């Protein structure tokens, strides 16, 4: 239970600040994440020594606005979903997102935490593929992913 009580950020990811946001690249899963300012600030405070109420207090000081513990729990929930926290050994009871947002209310003083993720593409996915009727030898070469009788079909 300690992991959720004292959440710890994974240290084996690449991260860089882009304006107010932080871009995190998970080298193990090849997934990129964009953490908005609130999520990023919460993530940085996940050092295994701070509890959610402590994180909320520190965030309030940093952002010069009252940050409710529910905001922190919502951030932790999203960070955990994105596998950016060290996994707890024992499964923990999670606060549903809907409940968290209801608790926060509509008058939150800070931007709600948001983590956006994408799976990093393979090289083949990012380069132009072969179009309809272009010769091919494998499905992966074709935009349609269908190579039939050595010709791409569709796409």
């Amino acid at each position, binding site marked *: 239970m300690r992991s959720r009580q004292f959440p710890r950020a994974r240290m084996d990811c*690449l991260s*860089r600040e*882009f*304006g*107010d*946001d*932080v*871009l995190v*690249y998970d*080298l193990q899963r*090849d997934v*990129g*994440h*964009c*953490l*908005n300012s609130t999520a990023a600030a919460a993530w940085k405070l996940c050092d295994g020594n701070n509890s959610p109420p402590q994180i909320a207090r520190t965030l309030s000081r940093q952002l010069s606005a009252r940050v409710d513990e529910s905001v922190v729990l919502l951030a932790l929930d999203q960070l955990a979903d994105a596998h950016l926290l060290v996994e707890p050994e024992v499964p923990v009871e999670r606060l549903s997102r809907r409940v968290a947002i209801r608790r926060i209310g509509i008058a939150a003083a800070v931007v709600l935490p948001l983590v*956006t993720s*994408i799976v*990093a*593409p*393979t*090289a*083949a*996915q*990012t*380069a*132009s*593929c*072969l*179009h*309809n*009727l*272009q*010769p*091919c*030898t494998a499905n992966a*070469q074709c*935009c349609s992913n269908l190579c039939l009788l*050595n*010709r791409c079909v569709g*796409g």
Partner: protein
Amino acid sequence: MKKLDRLDWAEVITLSAFGVRAGVRVNVSGVLPRVLPLLPPGWEKAHRSIVQRLYSLVVAQGCERPGLRRLHVLYADTMQVARDAALDQVLATLETDLHRYTAEATSDVTFLHAGVVGWQGRAIVFPGRSLSGKTTLVREMLRLGATYYSDEFAVVDSSGLVHPFARPLGIREDSSYAQTKYTAERLGAASGVKPLPMGMAVICKYEAGARWQPAPLSQGQGALELLANSVAVRSRPHQTLRRLHKLVRHSVFIQGTRGEAQEAAASILNLSCARNRLETA
């Protein structure tokens, strides 16, 4: 490879593009001049014969006989990548595969799958996958006076500047999937030569009849979109992230759904003008 090596090769070229060395060999004389325009823009002849990837093009020779189709075959190292009766189609596959390999293998620069034009000393970048309408938008921007950089790749160096990858634009006529190649000059536009800082990145998708109403995107969200179109992010994540960081330093991001390209292209150039004016004020 040994079997291929034993064939008689009439013409061979070794080239270097963005630090990647590749070779193309053909078993029939007179075919190589048709290969040269398909090589990556900015390629140079390499003097070393050791290459990272060797293409072997086996052109079918002899007369066609009834009931027997003679096929041209293309190998990338030992892997067969195309086999077809139409040589033009096999050459098109050679171009696609070679450009893709160069984009993946180079560490000198970072390739993003994107269209790029130059406008008032800044690059406008449109990241997107195949068939996302990059070329259509680039072509429309050229019509409005922008400079051509690429309809395929944004090439980013270690300082975050965008270099041209000005291959001829592959334009799909009407509803056909077949592409016709046009140089920027043939479309009445100039091709860029100088590397440019990125001023704006536009994340858009096409939807028939949609009205172009772009919204701003945060720098992190924009960088994530660029990451999603980075060719070598899996093999070189540190380098990609570092270069993206430099690339987006002074740029803004917008996103939206576009209908016809004319409306979006004019709006994007106007936005870019307004931004440049604000910056110089």
